[in-house]
């Protein structure tokens, strides 16, 4: 049963995980993007649609990423160049993504695609317990697992990462070095949108092979919450996402055990868990917030 829950955690949590890694980049630079949900939806539809047209899920996924990026471009423009409130803009992007994908996605609802299938890695997937949990997933999931250490390295061990973090913490430093912090933030938001789009594409092209209106169902919002929970660290964000996935899987497993718990109560669990996790982490994290972000979250930006 534990193995099932853990496998389910990775299967269900991957799309959220990829999106939260992207949002991590954006928030490190000081911009919070609640429109991640919209980016994920556009990525899911874009990825699905292009896979239908080209028959190639890799191209489709790339297209999904680009769709997510384009949506986040609107967010970046409104927030960085027009000075709009970050949270309100993000929400608007969310509605916009929902409306646009519902509209343009109508023709794709019953289409079939050649999507990504789970690819068991030879030998490794035969290891008892771990093999099934880690080594029997689709290619995008494998890539996402690699994404985490890569991102950690970039953020904490390269100059690029320093620039990124400076944009969120001490933009004066960037000015002094002749780098425009606004540009850095733009790129960070776009990178976030790209990854959110990939996360959405993973959901449609790899996991479900379907497109249905509003199929992201709140994962984008959870991704944003998870980044805060994770204190803006890639590894913790990954764990948080898998926790969310585990809650979703747990809910299903519990139902099958025949325990007398109302399904509605179980549906709530992932969201309540996210809230509780946020609360627990909040105590310790005050000093770790990128300063620019702190202003946004406290409401003075």
């Amino acid at each position, binding site marked *: 049963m534990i193995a099932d829950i853990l496998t389910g955690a990775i299967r269900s949590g991957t799309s959220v995980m990829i999106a939260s890694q992207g949002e991590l980049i954006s928030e490190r630079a000081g911009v919070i993007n609640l429109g991640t949900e919209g980016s994920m939806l556009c990525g899911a539809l874009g990825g699905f649609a292009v896979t239908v047209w080209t028959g190639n899920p890799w191209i489709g996924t790339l297209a999904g990423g680009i769709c997510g990026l384009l949506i986040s471009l609107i967010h970046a423009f409104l927030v960085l160049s*027009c000075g709009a*409130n970050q949270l309100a803009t993000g*929400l608007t992007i969310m509605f916009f993504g929902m409306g646009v994908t519902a509209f343009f996605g109508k023709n794709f609802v019953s289409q079939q695609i050649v999507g990504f299938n789970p690819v068991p890695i030879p030998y490794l997937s035969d290891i008892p317990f771990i093999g099934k949990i880690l080594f029997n997933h689709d290619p995008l999931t494998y890539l996402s697992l690699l994404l985490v250490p890569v991102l950690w390295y970039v953020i904490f061990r390269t100059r690029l990462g320093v620039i990124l973090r400076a944009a969120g913490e001490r933009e004066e430093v960037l000015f002094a070095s002749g780098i425009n912090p606004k540009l850095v933030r733009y790129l960070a938001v776009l990178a976030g949108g790209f990854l959110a789009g990939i996360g959405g594409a993973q959901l449609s092209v790899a996991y479900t092979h379907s497109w249905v209106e509003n199929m992201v169902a709140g994962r984008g*919002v959870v991704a944003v919450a998870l980044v805060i929970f994770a204190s803006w660290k890639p590894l913790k964000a990954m764990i948080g996402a898998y926790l969310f996935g585990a809650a979703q899987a747990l809910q299903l497993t519990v139902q099958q055990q025949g325990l007398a718990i109302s399904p509605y109560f179980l*549906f*709530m669990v992932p969201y309540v868990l996210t809230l509780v996790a946020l609360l627990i982490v*909040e105590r310790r994290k005050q000093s770790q917030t990128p300063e620019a972000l702190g202003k946004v979250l*406290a409401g*003075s930006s």
Partner: protein
Amino acid sequence: MSIAATITKDNKSFLARNQSWMIQSAAIIAPFIVFGIFLTFYEVNPIELYWSMVQTTFGNLYGFGEVLLKATPFILTGLAAALPAKAGLVNVGGEGQLAIGALFATWFAVFYLDTMPAMIGIPIMLLAGACGGAVWAGLVAVLKVKGKLNETITSVLLNYVAVFIVGFFVHGMLKDPNSFNWPFSPEIANTLRLPIINNTRLHVGFMIAIVLAIIVWFVLSKTRLGFKIRVLGSNRLAAERAGFQINKMYFWVLIAAGALAGIAGMIEIAGIEGRLRASVGTNFGYLGFLAAMMAWNHPLRLMASAFLLGMISVAGNKLEIFSGLPSSSVNILMALVLFFILGSGKLVKK
């Protein structure tokens, strides 16, 4: 001051004031133009559509009533977003607060109030709805004040939880014994339904909404409390330095907002639906937020923007029946309106 200087000074401020108003109007009109262009690609004549929207709304009493019906919850959930916004908070939990308000209102109506006369039953139901919404917003408030969690994120997450809570109750304790086990509540008593105007479906809820909007406006602009709230919203540092009890203010503002959204929930049940379903008030919270933004969080202007949103909402179905375009295309229009408003924010001096 010399006369010449006074005249120049007045002229300048007159222009500046007009400029702001013009930009705000442009921000509302531009998206309709953009959407109109979008429609032409789908062979829908936008002028015809917009005109039919106006016709439906003002052409007969029924149409007008329908628009007001739609606008009513928007006004209330809009207030639920606008009031905290004046204090510097972004409350997007109108959705969940409405649902829990509807839940409380239905609970009271079904279990305690079915034999009461209207004059007692309806106000109690109203209070119950307000309490429900307040409780739900209270969660957001506590998490913000004690837990330091950002209210936007918590209120959105709680929206999802609220829907499941309502679902839990309509499948269980609130399930109608006479509806063959389908998950909705029993119908509330006739005496508890809000009075309606003949020849329409319009109920007096919209008057309640307008009255509340006026009250909120009055408090915000004419009382000392309102002044303090606005100071907190525009300059938190100054508020702190002036010794305001920030946390207490945040808390009560959110409670009030929740109560307003909860009243919207009660009105939804007592005015239109007559019973509680799991899907009560879907999207009303978000649309109210949109209305508040369109009105720059001003309670009186909120009534106008809610009315406009009501018109668009009603038109959505007409659009679909007319042209086969899905009613979700109207969401695109609404989002466009928001984009323009957000984009013009810096240009407008409040």
